[in-house]
Structure formats: structure tokens, C-alpha cells
């Protein structure tokens, strides 16, 4: 008998229906096609038409189905019945839950709104949650940015008017040299991967600067195995080389940056500020006349080399600083762990790529001074950086240094360089300043977060100059803390410093576990009681979708839906999903319903907030008659206007044909759904580059509603707001820093980028190694472990040790080690890695889990072999004997310095389980 190939159905119908929405397993926010069979999700793939991911998905996105079916999902509102942290809850109805919340929050608002602290994690609706908090009237609101990447975000905004973070990207289609600093994965996961793929396909050069060579750095053509915390030195040495060789873009510097601006050199309260005219416009010397002129005068040719009345240009100041021998490659090589010759070689490569083969796009354009340019000239060198730079206590200045490098070679907003995504660029001075003035029963005086221009914008109480915010954001300790300091909320609330709060409301942040420093102590703070036996943080309300570690510490749990079951809005008012050529926004919508059997069910937390706002009568959320203005979040998305005609979504406004500006359109969400869940608006061809100075762009941005009038600006090589804080520290401001901070402010708030050793180094004696974490591409923080597919990939996490340590300590496969930092000790499994900086150890972030959580078995490897490095990281620096506790954060922004961690490693007998081990949480009542 001869073999018959079986009949195959090669054209099976994939599903009954496809619904297009937006992924949620990270802030990348890719478009997804959700396939349904019999009303249930059967398969999820990338949406080909979507501007973010163009059809691709990452490992998390492609296993989203398991996020929805996870048994760890909460099923009903919960009221705590056992002690905090025990996990003992009873299910209650939504009426009870909302009633309780109103009973707690209503009196607070009337009496002391600051006693509600509302902090959110990687909340994708910050423009909404912040508005809610503002309407409530508490100054205590922020999202996770303070412990995440505020250094990067703030340095970018203050310098360029946009940052690497999510507000810009390399010109993937044109760049020829791409240099990546300190990135394992980042928020822009799929665009970065798509971009790297494009570079690889063209054979463009990729350089990875990272102590660890995995992932993106593994495919980089060259690897700079930098010693953590020293990137600033490396970058300034590159700048030194480029300056010494004169290989910088003078024309770019003169036209588009404050390099030609004159720095006041007369002693007194203006010293070091830029000279300005009567209208406050910075002055430059016009080459044609030799006379000072406002920077934006039509036809002006600024002179970089001018000196006027003893005042020199920013350009001269910077040249003087960085040409100094202390920034020569030889001077930094040892500290960076990179040979001087390699630094020189890199500088050479950068210069040749930027200047020897310029990229020209034949697209005429007109700048803000009215000059018409025949073409767009590119510098095809691009950079990207993230937390490897950001999460150090010198991160803000390091990020500024990197932006300076980009500016010097003229590679920002040019073809082949780094490009902004609308609605960026938007300079710091066009952003709000922080607001913190609160009064009982009244909304806050403005948005919480912003970009201070000087000490007058600090969030200090007017009477006693004490911190207005519970996290001490925008104080002298961290003046530019543009994202707040999430990591300080629980310690400060527990200590009652600067004041006591009543209710801590958290939303999707696993603060009793992986997102806190010093996790064990935070658990104690959450359960600590005062003399009267009451919890020192009296009430905790928490919204999560899953049985996470944090749920156990809440008094009231408001269970959320998953991303496939609710409306969401990925708004330009928030963190945009645009790309440089398109403004884009998107929605989520309930593509399936959340079935919860006999339980009270889950509700979208945003809709719960809308409901609470109605019940509490928050201004903006109720009508003149005091009735709720919005039925739910979807209603808010379409109905809310930030400014007249400008709302959360730009597409299909008014009668459905208007973009950017237009009256609210009740059909808007339906139109988005019909359009695949997103909307894009093309940036006109003439407006695609040189956006801060390009008239066509500025005009387009106004029509889109990004701002109300053109607002061209110069890149801030010299950062004046920083100088204003220095001046205060020198005694020239009515607001004065406390004595113990004066010297630090003078030293760190330098208006030109500097480098100083990360604060963690001060305690380095006895702790020779740097300890880092990296995000695994296939896991999202704590919350991938409940996914049955993903946890097979990363079920536990060894600590990787470099060859030198591995051999010196005589480690063997399967060994364990005790890892000790100045603040604690853990015992964990180790593994060997040669492709690693000699002084660095690392592990994957957030794999370790607390027993009993996430509906995992108590002996799950996440709990028995997995571990967190967080136990070794303190939110405060070790005592220095000055009677003060300094925070383990960047002194400018308050960014948590996760990566300043220093440790030592010794072989240890394998304990039964990773240590420290905590008692299991008994969540049985939930299942």
C-alpha cells in the first residue's frame, strides 16, 4: 500500500470574529487583533495597521490570553477581615465597597484633602487619575515615574523639550550609527526591536554601552562594558574629543541652541543667568552687527564666539569646561572600565558618521526666524538611553550630558538623528509648574506635577516652608522631581514626616514587593501600629486586577477588569504612542465581558473613579446641579474637554471629521473601534524634522491643539532653572535651602552637565561589586509570573556573576551565594556569565514572588528559588555620621537610585529556599 498524505484543512477559519484593541502588558501599547471563538478569546496577534507595532507582538503580548484566564484574578470587592498582610478578606458588594470608600474619603475632602495620598503605578490613564486627584484637592498624587525614569524624562524636557523615554525615537530608517546606553528593554519595546531589525537589515552599526551584554546589547556590533554609574564620564570624554578636534556642528549650535546666548558674569543675583532683553528674551550677538539681539529675531546670525561687556557665550563656557584635561579619555578610562583608545575610536566613528557622509533630504522648510532652507541636512548618528543612566544618583546630569553630545553633533530633530513624537517637542517652560496649594473642600490650584523654573515653584507650604507633599517632591532635597517620589510615600507616611495621612490609595503598583526599595521594611511599615494600636497608615485602598503581594496589605480592594474588558484611552494628553511622522492615539474597549460567576464581579477602576467622583461631588465630574457628569470612563473619554475643543482623543472629533480640535463627539469611541482601535494624523512632509524651529510644524501643532500658538524655542545646553537653584544656595533668593543642603545644591545643580560619583560609591568600601537588575523581555514586572506560559520561561532568576568573581570564590554550577549590601543580605542561586563587566553582578527583575500570591503553589520556584534584589536596596543611604539620613536618589529629581547598589558576594551553603523567606500570604478566602 502506498502512503497517502492525510487531507489537511489548510484554510481553517481562524475565529468567528476579530476585535481590535490595545495591548496592556507594558507601556508600549501595541495594537492587537483579538480573535474570538464562541465569545471567548481564542488567539491574540498584532494589528498590522497599528502605528506602534505594525503587526508584531512581544512574548507578553502574544500570551495575553493567559492574563485574562488567570485564576489569580480578583472576583469581587474585598474588605480586610484579618490583620493587614495576612490575606484574610471577605467579599463584599460593590455598593458596600463604594459606600465605604465614600465614607472614608468624603470627610477627608471636606476637612483635610491632603490626608488622601493617591499614587498610581504604571497607570496608563495619568491625565485622568491626576485630574481626579486635582479635583479631590489633595497635593499628594503622582504616578510611578519618580522611581522609574524621571531623570531621563526631566533631563530630556529641560534640555531638548522631549526625552528618549517615550517622547522621541531614533530615525530608524536613516540612522547609520546607533548608540544605546543602559537599555535592556524599555517602554518602547516593539518599536525599538523593529528599529534594531531595520538597522541590522541595512547593516548599520549598533553600539551597546552596558555592563551586561544580553538582548539588544548582544546584537550590538560593539560592546562598551562600562562600569555602572560612569556613563557621564564616558560621554564627557567623547565631548572632549569632539571639541578638541573641532568636530561639532557649529551651524546647528548657533541656530538652534542656547550656545550663542550670553551668560551674565556680573556678581550678584543674576550671575550665571542668561542676559535677556526687556521682554525676557535671551540675547545673542548678531554676527552681522556685532550687537546684542533677541535670539529669535528674523534673519539673525548668532555669534558663538562673542563676548559682550565681559559676558561670554554659553558655547565658550562649555568649551572651557569640557576641553579641560580632566575630561580627556585617559583621565576617565580607569573609572569607566573602558580603555582610552576605545573612547577615542568611538569619538572618531561618531564624528565621521555625523559629518563625512551627511544625509540630505530634498525638502525645503522655513525656520522660526523666517529663513528658508533648501533641504534638510541630517547627521545619521542616533542615541537611545534609559534606566541604566536614569536609575543612578547622577542620572539627571548624565542624561543631560548625553543630550549635550547629541546637540553638539547636531543630531536631534534632523534626518538620521533623534526625532520627537508629537505632541513633543515641548520645552520645560511650556509645561505646567507644580501645584500643591490645597484647601478643604476645594480642588488643588493646578496640576500636581510640572517643571519648576526656579525655587519659587517648589512645593513648599507658604507658611512654614515645610514640604507640601507627602513624598517631599519639589523640595530642596530634589527640586526638579517632575514625577514625584513614589518610593518615599510609604516611608514618609509611616514616619508621619512631613505629616500624617489618613488614606493611602494605590492603583496598580505592587508596593509591598517589587516596586519598593527595602521590601521587608516596607511590609513592616504597612503593618506598623501607633501607641493606640491603630495602623500608622490608617487606611489603604487598593485597585489591582490580580492577587498580588500588595493586595494583602489593603483594607479595601477594588478589583479591576483586565485590559480586554474595559475602556481605556491612550491619549496625547498622557504618554503618546505617536511616531515622528504621525500623531497617534488609541483606545481599549471591552472586547469580552468579565464573567465572575457567583461573585460581585470586577469593574474598570477608571469607571469606579468616575463613579466615586460623582458621589463625592468632585468639580469637573459633576454638573452644575451636582449630578454625575459622566456615566463611566468611556463617557469621560468622549465628553471631557481639557481646553475647549481639546479632549483625550484627537480623532473623529466634532461631527467626526475633525482632527485634533473639535467638539466632543458621542460617536467617537465607535469610530475608533471601526478604525481598528486607533487614530493617526500625518505630520506634513515639511514639518517632519527640525520641529522646535520649523514653522510648518509649529503651525500644524497649533491646528492639532497641542498648543494654542507657535512656541519655537532653543535647546537648553545651559539650563537656567538649575542655575536659579544654585543662586538660591548662594544666598540669592527669598526662598532659602536648609543649611545642610546648600553645598549639595551648589554642586549638583550645575547648569552645564557634570559628573559626580554615584552616592552609593561612598559606602563602597567592603562592597566591591555593583549589583543591577534587568527587565526580562518576556516578563512584565511582578505580573508576568501568573501567566502559565511566561512563568515557564522565567520561573526563577539566578544572580549572574562575572568570571573574575566566579573563579576567585571557586563557584560551581548550582551554587548559592550570600549577597550583602550596606543595608541587608540575601542568599540566592548564582550562575556564571563572562559577557559581563568585571565588577558587576545582576539578575532579572521582579521574578521572585511571595508565597501564596498570584495563585501559584506555595512551592513555586518563584518563591523558593526566585528572589528580589530590592531587599538589599534602601530608600535611604547608609548613615554618614552627620546625624542626617540622605535619600538614595538623584539630588535633582529624586529619582530612586536602584542601580547605585553595591554588594559583596560569598559562597554559601544552599539554604532550603532563597533568603529572606517571608511567611506565605493566605489568600484562600479569595479563590
Amino acid at each position, binding site marked *: *500500500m502506498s502512503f497517502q498524505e492525510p487531507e489537511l484543512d489548510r484554510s481553517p477559519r481562524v475565529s468567528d470574529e476579530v476585535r481590535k484593541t490595545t495591548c496592556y502588558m507594558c507601556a508600549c501599547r501595541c495594537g492587537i487583533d483579538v480573535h474570538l471563538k464562541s465569545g471567548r478569546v481564542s488567539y491574540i496577534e498584532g494589528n498590522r495597521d497599528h502605528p506602534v507595532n505594525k503587526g508584531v507582538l512581544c512574548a507578553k503580548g502574544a500570551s495575553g490570553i493567559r492574563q485574562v484566564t488567570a485564576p489569580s484574578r480578583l472576583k469581587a470587592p474585598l474588605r480586610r477581615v484579618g490583620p493587614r498582610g495576612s490575606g484574610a478578606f471577605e467579599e463584599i458588594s460593590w455598593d458596600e465597597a463604594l459606600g465605604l470608600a465614600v465614607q472614608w474619603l468624603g470627610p477627608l475632602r471636606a476637612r483635610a484633602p491632603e490626608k488622601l495620598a493617591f499614587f498610581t503605578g504604571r497607570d496608563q490613564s495619568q491625565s485622568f487619575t491626576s485630574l481626579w486627584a486635582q479635583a479631590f484637592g489633595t497635593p499628594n498624587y503622582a504616578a510611578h515615574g519618580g522611581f522609574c525614569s524621571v531623570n531621563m524624562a526631566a533631563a530630556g524636557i529641560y534640555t531638548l523639550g522631549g526625552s528618549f523615554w517615550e517622547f522621541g525615537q531614533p530615525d530608524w530608517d536613516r540612522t547609520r550609527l546607533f548608540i544605546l546606553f543602559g537599555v535592556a528593554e524599555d517602554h518602547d519595546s516593539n518599536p525599538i526591536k523593529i528599529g534594531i531589525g531595520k538597522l541590522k537589515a541595512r547593516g548599520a552599526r549598533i553600539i551597546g554601552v552596558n555592563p551586561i551584554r544580553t538582548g539588544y546589547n548582544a546584537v550590538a556590533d560593539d560592546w562598551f562594558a562600562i562600569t555602572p554609574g560612569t556613563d557621564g564620564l564616558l560621554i564627557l570624554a567623547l565631548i572632549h574629543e569632539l571639541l578638541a578636534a573641532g568636530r561639532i556642528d557649529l551651524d546647528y549650535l548657533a541656530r538652534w541652541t542656547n550656545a550663542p546666548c550670553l551668560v551674565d558674569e556680573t556678581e550678584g543675583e543674576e550671575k550665571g543667568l542668561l542676559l535677556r532683553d526687556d521682554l525676557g528674551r535671551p540675547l545673542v550677538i548678531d554676527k552681522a552687527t556685532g550687537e546684542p539681539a533677541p535670539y529669535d529675531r528674523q534673519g539673525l546670525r548668532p555669534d558663538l564666539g562673542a563676548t559682550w561687556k565681559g559676558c561670554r557665550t554659553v558655547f565658550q563656557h562649555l568649551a572651557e569646561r569640557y576641553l579641560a584635561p580632566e575630561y580627556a579619555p585617559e583621565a576617565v578610562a580607569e573609572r569607566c572600565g573602558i580603555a582610552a583608545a576605545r573612547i577615542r575610536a568611538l569619538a572618531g566613528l561618531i564624528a565621521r558618521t555625523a559629518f563625512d557622509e551627511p544625509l540630505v533630504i530634498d525638502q525645503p522648510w522655513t525656520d522660526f526666524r523666517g529663513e528658508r532652507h533648501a533641504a534638510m541636512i541630517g547627521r545619521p548618528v542616533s542615541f537611545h538611553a534609559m534606566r541604566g543612566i536614569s536609575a543612578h544618583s547622577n542620572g539627571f546630569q548624565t542624561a543631560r550630558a548625553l543630550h549635550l553630545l547629541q546637540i553638539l553633533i547636531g543630531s536631534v530633530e534632523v534626518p538620521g538623528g533623534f526625532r520627537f513624537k508629537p505632541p513633543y517637542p515641548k520645552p520645560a517652560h511650556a509645561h505646567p509648574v507644580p501645584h500643591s496649594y490645597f484647601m478643604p473642600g476645594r480642588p488643588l490650584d493646578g496640576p500636581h506635577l510640572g517643571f519648576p523654573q526656579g525655587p519659587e515653584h517648589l512645593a513648599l507650604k507658604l507658611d512654614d516652608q515645610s514640604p507640601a507633599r507627602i513624598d517631599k517632591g519639589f523640595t530642596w532635597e530634589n527640586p526638579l522631581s517632575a514625577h514625584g517620589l513614589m518610593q518615599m510615600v510609604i516611608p514618609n507616611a509611616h514616619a508621619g514626616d512631613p505629616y500624617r495621612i489618613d488614606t493611602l490609595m494605590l492603583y496598580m503598583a505592587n508596593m509591598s514587593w517589587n516596586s519598593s526599595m527595602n521590601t521587608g521594611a516596607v511590609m513592616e511599615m504597612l503593618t506598623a501600629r501607633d501607641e493606640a494600636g491603630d495602623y500608622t497608615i490608617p487606611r489603604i485602598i487598593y485597585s489591582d486586577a490580580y492577587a498580588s503581594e500588595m493586595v494583602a496589605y489593603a483594607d479595601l480592594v477594588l478589583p479591576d477588569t483586565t485590559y480586554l474588558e474595559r475602556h481605556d484611552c491612550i491619549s496625547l494628553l498622557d504618554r503618546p504612542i505617536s511616531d515622528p511622522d504621525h500623531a497617534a492615539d488609541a483606545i481599549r474597549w471591552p472586547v469580552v465581558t468579565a464573567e465572575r460567576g457567583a461573585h460581585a464581579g470586577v469593574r474598570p477602576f477608571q469607571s469606579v473613579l468616575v463613579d466615586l467622583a460623582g458621589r463625592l461631588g468632585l468639580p469637573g465630574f459633576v454638573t452644575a446641579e451636582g449630578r454625575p457628569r459622566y456615566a463611566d470612563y468611556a463617557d469621560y473619554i468622549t465628553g471631557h474637554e481639557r481646553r475647549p475643543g481639546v479632549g483625550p482623543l484627537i480623532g473623529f472629533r466634532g461631527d467626526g471629521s475633525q482632527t485634533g480640535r473639535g467638539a466632543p463627539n458621542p460617536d467617537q469611541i465607535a469610530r475608533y473601534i471601526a478604525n481598528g482601535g486607533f487614530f493617526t494624523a500625518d505630520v506634513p512632509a515639511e514639518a517632519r524634522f527640525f520641529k522646535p524651529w520649523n514653522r510648518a510644524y509649529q503651525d500644524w501643532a497649533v491646528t492639532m491643539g497641542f498648543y494654542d500658538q507657535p512656541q519655537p524655542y532653543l535647546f537648553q545646553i545651559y539650563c537656567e532653572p538649575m542655575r536659579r537653584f544654585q543662586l538660591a544656595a548662594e544666598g540669592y533668593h527669598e526662598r532659602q535651602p536648609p543649611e545642610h543642603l546648600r553645598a549639595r545644591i551648589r554642586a549638583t545643580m550645575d547648569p552645564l552637565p557634570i559628573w559626580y560619583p554615584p552616592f552609593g560609591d561612598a559606602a563602597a568600601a567592603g562592597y566591591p561589586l555593583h549589583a543591577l537588575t534587568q527587565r526580562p523581555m518576556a516578563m512584565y514586572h511582578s505580573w508576568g509570573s501568573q501567566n502559565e506560559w511566561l*512563568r*515557564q*520561561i*522565567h*520561573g*526563577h532568576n539566578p544572580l549572574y556573576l562575572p568570571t573574575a568573581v566566579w573563579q576567585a570564590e571557586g563557584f560551581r554550577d548550582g551554587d548559592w551565594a550570600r549577597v550583602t549590601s550596606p543595608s541587608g543580605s540575601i542568599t540566592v542561586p548564582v550562575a556564571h*556569565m563572562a*559577557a559581563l563587566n568585571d565588577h558587576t553582578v545582576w539578575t532579572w527583575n521582579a521574578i521572585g514572588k511571595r508565597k501564596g500570591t498570584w495563585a501559584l503553589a506555595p512551592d513555586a520556584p518563584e518563591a523558593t528559588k526566585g528572589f528580589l534584589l530590592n531587599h538589599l536596596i534602601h530608600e535611604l543611604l547608609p548613615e554618614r555620621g552627620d546625624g542626617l539620613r540622605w535619600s538614595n536618589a538623584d539630588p535633582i529629581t529624586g529619582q530612586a537610585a536602584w542601580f547605585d547598589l553595591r554588594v559583596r558576594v560569598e559562597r554559601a551553603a544552599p539554604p532550603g529556599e532563597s533568603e529572606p523567606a517571608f511567611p506565605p500570604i493566605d489568600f484562600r478566602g479569595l479563590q
Partner: protein
Amino acid sequence: MHPAPSVILFTVLSGAGFGLLGLLGLGPALGAAPSGGLAALLLWGLGYALAGAGLIASGFHLGRPERALRAFSQWRSSWLSREAWATVAALLASAPVALASILGRPLPVAAGLVSGLICLATVLVTAMIYAQLKTVPRWHHWTVPALFAGFALTGGAILAGFGPFAALPALALGALMILAFRIGDGRFAAAGSTLATATGLGPAAGGGLRSFAPPHTGSNYLMREMIHVVGRRHARRLRRIAVLAGAVLPALILAALPAGILATALAAILHLAGALAQRWLFFAEAEHVVGLYYGAR
């Protein structure tokens, strides 16, 4: 390879069973007096029982045993399929010979010769299932069919009551085992598969190449089935047991003790114990090239 009890029992029992059936069939041709009556019933019965038990054990190795009949279809290409046919042929061909001798009416010698050869061929076909696998270099060698045959002949000869004559195949088996262990130890290296050929990263590596991280921290079928690490000391001890119990001691017993039920039983039990040890090692020591991907080796 994972030393699964099902395959160990299958190969040991069916090997002994077909060895016994084979030698019972071949016996007259070799000049042995055919037994009859109860003795024949017991002997042939034992042969069928062993072969049957082996077959049943092999069923436990299948994911879908209810479809076992399908295994007959691919005899032209598949040794496993051929084995199915050979097994049936051996069992069928032995039946009349067995029946006749139990009834005391032995068939012509030629009939036993045919059935016996089919039984022994079955054992060789079984061996070929393993010996054909290039992926397991230790198995991909003539010593494997030789060993399987050796065990079948020795076991068969002991059980068939060949007495001192059974010492001969036993001794040969012992020598063969020692040889096979020796040769086997060098097979993987000789086969030339390395992590460098498995990944193609050899030339770039120049120096070191190793598995940095497995694809999953969780386990999987491949790791359970194909990657098994035996301690060296443990292996050495078991090898000794296999050679001593499986070959040397039975030979000594059969040569030294008077032929009879006692010597046969003692030798048979020792031999089977040795066979089990050898078979455990046969799997446990066999390295599959896929282990290279996981850094096993």
C-alpha cells in the same frame, strides 16, 4: 536517555522471552532433546509469558496505546513497525511448534528452526530500533544488536535448561558487555556532534562556547526524555553488577553446580538482575545529541 521502567522491562523481558522461545524452537536443530508434556508447557509458557509481559510493558511507553495496531503499517521504513510484525510472526510461528511439543508430537526440526530464527530475528529487530539512531551515538553501533542477541541467547539458554551449555553464551555476553561499555564511552566524541556543530557557533567561538541560559527555567519533555546524567561511580558499580550478575556468575553457577532446576533458577534470576542493570545503563548512559543544546555534555 531516560531509563524508563517500561522500556527497560520491555526490552529485558521480551529479549529473554524471545530468546527462550527461539532456543526452544532451535533446540532440536542444535541437538537438544525436545522436552514434552508439562515441562514443555512450562517452558513454552514461560517464553510466551515473558514475551507477553514485555509487550505489555512496552504499551506503557505509548501515549496512545489504544492505537497500537497502527504500528504495523510502516514496515517498509520503520524498525519499530518491523518489530511489531516480527513479534507477531515470532509468536505465531512458535505456536504450532510449542503446541506440538507440549502434545508430545514434535513437528519436524525445520519448523522449530524457522520459528526459532524468527524469534531471534525479532530480538535483532528490537535492537535495531536503538541501533539505527544516529542521534544516540552510543547506540548507533553493531554492539547493540550483538548485545541484544547475547542477552536473548544467554537468557534463553539458561531458561531453556541448557545447563552448562548456557555458560558459553553467558561468557561471550560478558565479554561483549565489557567491549560495549568500552566502545560506547567513546562513541559520542567519535560521532563528532558538539555544541559547535549543533549551533554553528563554532567558528565564531574560536575559544569557548557554552550554554548560557536554557530557553525555559521550567522543564520539558526533551529534558526528561533525553537528558539523563548518571554519576560516574554509580555507573561503574552498575557495570560491574551487570557483567557479574548478567554473565559471569550465571556461567560459573551453571558450570559448577549440577544441572537442574536449582542451578537454572539461580542463574536465571542473577542473569535477569544483571540484564536489568545493563539495560538501565543502556538507557541512562546513552547520550542524545539534543543534550548539547542544553549544555548537557
